[in-house]
């Protein structure tokens, strides 16, 4: 197989070409002892840890496949690792399902798989099993990935969206809206002459830091689609308590702010892929922020609000006004004038 080849339907047929692809490209990139047995199923009993078993899955359809700050491979691992981490689980293993579109350049597949491997290594997880399929050209955007992940929640860790209580404090680990803004700009539909980096990153260390500093943490969420506003609404609705947010306290990067201002978007509704929203008891808030700021992924951590009042989320605006902060309705669209 030469380096300038692209994926063809034959690569998915189960024959020699597919075996070559799996061994020489997929397994080679993801190299680990569990995967290399290449049986129909993997025995992962060696990965079992004490605690309660947690499982999650996610599919990744991002366009473009490669963007500043990451790619579909980084996302596929970080996204699933983060879902486990938000539940308080220590992630141990992932499966990787990949669906390639006929015509996908092989070098792109290799690049995405390298990112999967690197991010998995950084997150301390093993890619234990996988699947490869090829579909006919048309509408897939080149590559789709699915990852399922398992992890173990240590005894004593009880996180849940319904555990928020009046007086609890909301903390974010950093700036909001980074990833989705990066993707919008990378798609070039708006021809903005700027490079915005996604914040895509595995959050297992950040989550553990929060739990070690505040064992009574009520809930953690990574604000992905729908952004911070949607996440806060989910927490409010599940717990039945109101949430008040101070707009001035929500950290937003200058470059993200500039782009969203021009397009008429709101960073509070833009997805992140490397941030945590944590709800902690008031007495723990200061120490959690300090601990986060000591971590490279938490430098801009801040208290942004607290749980109070009737269910629903209220925003105290920069000029001192108050107004509801609703869940995202439909999609954000750039305005006329």
């Amino acid at each position, binding site marked *: 197989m030469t380096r300038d080849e692209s994926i063809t339907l034959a690569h998915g047929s189960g024959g020699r070409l597919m075996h070559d692809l799996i061994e020489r490209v997929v397994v080679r990139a993801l190299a680990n002892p569990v995967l290399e047995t290449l049986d129909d199923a993997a025995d992962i009993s060696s990965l079992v840890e004490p605690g309660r078993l947690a499982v999650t899955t996610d599919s990744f359809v991002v366009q473009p496949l490669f963007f500043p700050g990451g790619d579909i491979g980084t996302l596929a691992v970080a996204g699933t690792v983060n879902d486990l981490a938000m539940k308080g689980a220590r992630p141990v293993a992932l499966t990787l399902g990949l669906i390639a579109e006929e015509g996908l350049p092989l070098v792109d597949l290799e690049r995405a798989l390298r990112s999967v491997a690197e991010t998995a290594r950084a997150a301390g997880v093993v890619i234990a099993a996988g699947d490869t399929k090829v579909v006919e050209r048309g509408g897939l955007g080149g590559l789709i990935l699915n990852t399922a992940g398992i992890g173990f929640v240590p005894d004593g860790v009880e996180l849940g969206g319904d555990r928020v209580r009046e007086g609890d404090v909301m903390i974010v680990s950093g700036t909001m809206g980074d990833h989705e803004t990066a993707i919008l700009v990378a798609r070039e*539909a*708006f021809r903005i002459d700027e490079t915005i980096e996604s914040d895509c990153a595995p959050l297992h260390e950040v989550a553990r830091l929060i739990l070690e500093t505040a064992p009574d943490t009520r809930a953690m969420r990574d604000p992905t689609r729908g952004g911070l506003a949607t996440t806060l609404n989910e927490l409010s609705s599940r717990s039945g308590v109101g949430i008040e947010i101070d707009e*001035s306290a929500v950290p937003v990067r200058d470059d993200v702010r500039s782009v969203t*201002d021009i397009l008429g978007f*709101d960073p509070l509704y833009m997805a992140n892929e490397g941030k945590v929203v944590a709800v902690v008891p008031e007495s723990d808030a200061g120490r959690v922020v300090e601990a986060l700021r000591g971590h490279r992924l938490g430098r801009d951590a801040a208290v942004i609000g607290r749980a109070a009042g009737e269910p629903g989320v209220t*925003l*105290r*605006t*920069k*000029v*001192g*006004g*108050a*107004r*509801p902060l*609703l869940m995202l*309705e*439909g999609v954000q*669209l*750039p*305005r*006329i*004038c």
Partner: protein
Amino acid sequence: MSRTIDFEAFRTGPDADGLVRRIHELFEGPTALMEVCGTHTVAIGRAGIRSLMPDGLRLLSGPGCPVCVTPLGEIDMALAAARRPDVVLTTFGDMMRVPGSESSLERERAGGADVRIVTSALDAVEIAAGEPSKEVVFVGVGFETTSPTIAAALMTAERRGVENVSVLPFFKLVPPALDLLVAVPGRALDGFLCPGHVSSIIGSNAYEPVAHGADMPCVVAGFEPLDILAGVVMLLEQVRDVRSGGAARVETQYARAVRPEGNRTALELLDEVFEVVDADWRGIGTIPESGYALRERYAHRDAGAKLGVDRTRPDEPEGCICGAIMLGERIPADCPLFGTVCTPRDPVGPCMVSSEGSCAAHFRYERR
């Protein structure tokens, strides 16, 4: 040389507190101020400005939402054009979800129509240049901030010899709407917060007839929260003046973007391509000399004529009081459909459909 503008300075800080205090000091009793720009409607909502106002000071939203005032018949024309297999329909994003009599651009796209969101009318010209077998139609919705850019795009198409691009000229003009608003007897408006960006095109002088003819205070305000608060202060100072016998006038808060004479280049472009005609405003009816049609020498750029798509006059949905709301006679909470049958997810009338509509803004940003 590039210059960075610190917009945060217009959004926050002790100046805001000072302005709010001044508003409370100046307030003398029931006062109704109307803003006539969808961007102001949203900006006021997002900053929670109504929550800072004294009781009895009402900030009403007028007919300044371009999507809201586009009649059902015009939306249906856009949908009819979209359905043509040889047409690429280009539009600004906020038109996508607007329901016509039976469908919407979003639904047509899902059903296979070639509908593309653009951020500039020039994009339509580029698409046309690259796809010569298609007719690229641009949905021309907007006020005077927008119409000059479409004029420029059409002139560019002429210059480049790109023949397969045309426009549905649904543009509206703001000053005639103000004339209508002040002309109805018994209307209780005390002042207009005039649109900042429309005014940067037409100039603040455009409001002199309304200010002097109807003794109506007019302040042209920008869109950052501090701009709006400062604009309200200036209006209340005028209201106080007028109530003790003084004369109303036009003032500009948004001096950094608005000149009395406006933007001459833009006005010349408009005059080159368009002529002023009577226009139909949804929920309101015909307002004289409040819209644009293409001049004779640009008539070949009229998409309706080119495609043979006619304007119809379908009925409005029952129960919807958007017209009264846009004229400031009613507020969203008065509408029996508001928040129950009619929501941003399932909009009935135009004020809820557009993200800049009065009802959509109330639903999203005002406490209920």
